[in-house]
């Protein structure tokens, strides 16, 4: 038995996973329209490289930039490049490439790699970048960038899947354990060979664990069961449990020689190398009281959520739609929004949540007890309310992973995470404003300095000119006198 550590706090949650975890992954239908956002994670939007009217093949790159590439997830015609709703907390609209599919699903010719071990880490990484793979666990960070650091000793493949309702990783591990293990080996190669390669699974996923054990029988990949406690799947928490290293958010795992990747990312990497398949679809858990057929589906990226929900027999009484889990998910205003690379789960809920009225904080300290980052959520709340952002930073707000555990246990039902969001954005705004005014000050100082310098230079020139002209006049006079005489 491997020795495991513990992280501070954490909570036991009702998983609601049995709704969807026992049904095999099914292939979702090809929709009539695919809406592919040029921006699917933090960063700059990709630049489209197709025009309206172009015919595109399945797997063809249609937009790219240094960080990511976006592919047509089925064949068809580009009919528009226009702003469209995307899953975003502020209801932001982003430019999307809209493809009308032709139902032929015609692939571009794929370029599989027969033996990746003969390629250098850099070459493999380029293939991963070309395949448009990003972290599929939720944050969507481009994978090839995450695999750049050298001197990595430990690779952790995160199969904890601690959020309620979500079972896409569970199903993937059960059905495609081999892909996950082989993907882990490819990632390990890309990192220049790691000392330890671990796949971590929460102990409530017995079948997934067994499948991985069988799949990893002839490899160096370790399969480790970790306790089912929220938020085990948080990067910092998983690292702490597996290695005993307590990371703050300002330190990247790479700084202590660790890289964490999600299980589906590992499988996507495998498919990109073995079959040359770019990331065109992902597994989405569709669940909640608002669908008659909760299940996991492999959905083409760009498929409208409405089309996906219809295939799961959505009821007419859905009140809320959540992308992600019930602890950290994003509440969406409508279902006319495409599935993107980070859409791991859709919860359609009939429940008309009667928001418990928020009571004053009674300082009970439950939040501090369960905070997995060992922060003092209550103090953060009071200082945010008082707009004392310096104190908020002192109390390490930027270590907060926004797991929502504090809000979950708060007897006064205070939306603590929303307060932290607010505090973080205020601090960012203040900082960028401070930066701006510092720049302005520097510009102003330099301008004064320049004016001063120019004045001096002018004075100097005048003086020179004056002496010169005096000398010239004198010479002139002297000349004239000489001529007279």
């Amino acid at each position, binding site marked *: 038995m491997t020795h495991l550590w513990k992280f501070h706090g954490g909570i036991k*949650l009702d998983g609601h996973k049995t709704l969807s975890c026992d049904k095999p992954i099914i292939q979702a239908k090809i929709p009539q329209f695919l809406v592919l956002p040029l921006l699917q994670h933090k960063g700059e939007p990709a630049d489209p490289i197709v025009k309206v009217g172009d015919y595109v093949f399945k797997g063809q790159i249609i937009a790219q930039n240094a960080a990511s590439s976006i592919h047509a997830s089925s064949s068809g015609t580009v009919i528009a490049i226009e702003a469209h709703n995307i899953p975003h907390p502020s209801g932001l609209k982003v430019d999307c490439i809209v493809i009308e599919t032709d139902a032929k699903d015609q692939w571009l010719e794929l370029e599989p790699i027969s033996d990746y071990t003969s390629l250098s880490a850099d070459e493999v990484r380029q293939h991963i970048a070309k395949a448009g793979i990003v972290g599929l666990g939720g944050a969507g960070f481009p994978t090839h960038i995450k695999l750049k650091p050298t001197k990595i000793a430990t690779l952790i493949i995160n199969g904890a899947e601690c959020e309620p309702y979500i079972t896409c990783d569970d199903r993937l591990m059960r059905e495609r354990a081999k892909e996950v293990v082989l993907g882990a080996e490819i990632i390990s190669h890309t990192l220049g060979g790691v000392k330890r390669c671990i796949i971590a699974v929460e102990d409530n996923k017995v079948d997934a664990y067994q499948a991985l054990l069988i799949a990893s029988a002839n490899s160096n990949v370790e399969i480790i069961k970790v306790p089912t406690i929220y938020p085990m799947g948080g990067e910092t928490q998983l690292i702490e449990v597996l290695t005993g290293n307590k990371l703050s958010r300002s330190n990247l795992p790479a700084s202590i020689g660790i890289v964490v990747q999600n299980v589906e990312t590992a499988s996507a990497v495998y498919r990109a190398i073995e079959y040359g398949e770019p990331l065109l679809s992902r597994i989405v858990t569709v669940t909640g009281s608002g669908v008659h057929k909760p299940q996991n589906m492999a959905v083409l990226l760009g498929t409208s959520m409405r089309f996906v929900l219809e295939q799961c027999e959505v009821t007419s009484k859905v009140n809320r739609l959540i992308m992600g889990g019930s602890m950290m998910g994003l509440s969406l205003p409508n279902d006319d929004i495409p599935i993107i690379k980070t859409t791991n789960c859709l919860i359609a809920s009939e429940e008309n949540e009667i928001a418990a009225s928020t009571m004053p*904080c009674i300082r009970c300290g439950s939040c501090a007890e369960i905070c997995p980052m060992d922060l003092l959520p209550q103090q953060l709340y009071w200082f945010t309310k008082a707009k004392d952002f310096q104190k908020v930073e002192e109390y390490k707000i930027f270590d907060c992973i926004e797991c929502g555990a504090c809000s979950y246990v708060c007897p006064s039902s205070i939306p603590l995470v929303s307060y932290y969001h607010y505090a973080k954005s205020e601090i960012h705004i203040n900082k960028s404003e401070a930066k701006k005014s510092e720049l302005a000050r520097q510009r102003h100082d330099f301008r004064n300095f320049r004016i001063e310098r120019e004045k001096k230079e002018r004075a100097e020139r005048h003086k020179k000119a004056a002496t010169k002209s005096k000398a010239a006049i004198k010479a002139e006079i002297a000349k004239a006198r000489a001529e007279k005489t």
Partner: protein
Amino acid sequence: MEFKVSNAPFIHNNNSVSKIMRQLLYALMPAIVVYVYFFGWNIVVNLFIASITALSCEALMLLLRKRPLRAFLTDYSAIVTAFLLALALPPFVPWWITVLGTAFAIIVAKHVYGGLGYNLFNPAMAAYAMLLISFPLQMSDWSVILDTLSGATPLDAIKNQLKITDLKAWEWINLAFLLGGCWLLYKKVITWHIPVAMLISLIIISAIFFLINPNLYSSPLFHLLNGATIMGAFFIATDPVTAATSNKARLIYAAGIGILIYVIRTWGAYPDAVAFAVLLMNMAAPTIDYYVKS
């Protein structure tokens, strides 16, 4: 389809202020039963008078302060204050003392400071201290018990060097408070830090003096099982609003209460000391929080 939008997390463990307060009330029940057994039904009448007064004053203040009535009247916090005060008063105290004390607790000690969650002092203890200072005669009238049990309140008895014949009632009541307190620990309504630190500091300081001179100073056991020690440790010092915040700070806060109880009991002018000890440490709590962060 259009949907309602809200912020994560979308689930909650269903704990609430009113649930916590209800659990506190349940935990007081064993002590109330034992109280009735030894001192009769008067305590029930007092609890009733105090509760009615507390709810009326709470409603009045909420109206004046334009706060939502329903949410705050159903949070049971006013009832908890009423119960704690009634249990701290002598059982045969005149009714107007109970009314006056409860009204002071809710209006002055709670709402003037900003209501639930904002009060600096424990309302029940602030009211108790006010009554003790303003009406010393009525507040130390344990005469009926003196007749029935032929003994004054135990701590008064010690102070006046009276002979004590029956301390059993208080010991049993305190044990019943202990039972309720342990249930609160089990239910995770309170954590061990405050009761344990307070009781241990009281045991240590009383043991030191008891070992120096057993004839002059009473034993640790006597201090534990008499007066409002156990009730104070589990039900009063643990009030999260008026206690220190982090666990380490709470240890210091509670140890301070334990020591102050002993000091006031042994060298002070008042027979029991829990109220003053708690109030003094209430004042110190923000400072402790400032210096002890985690």
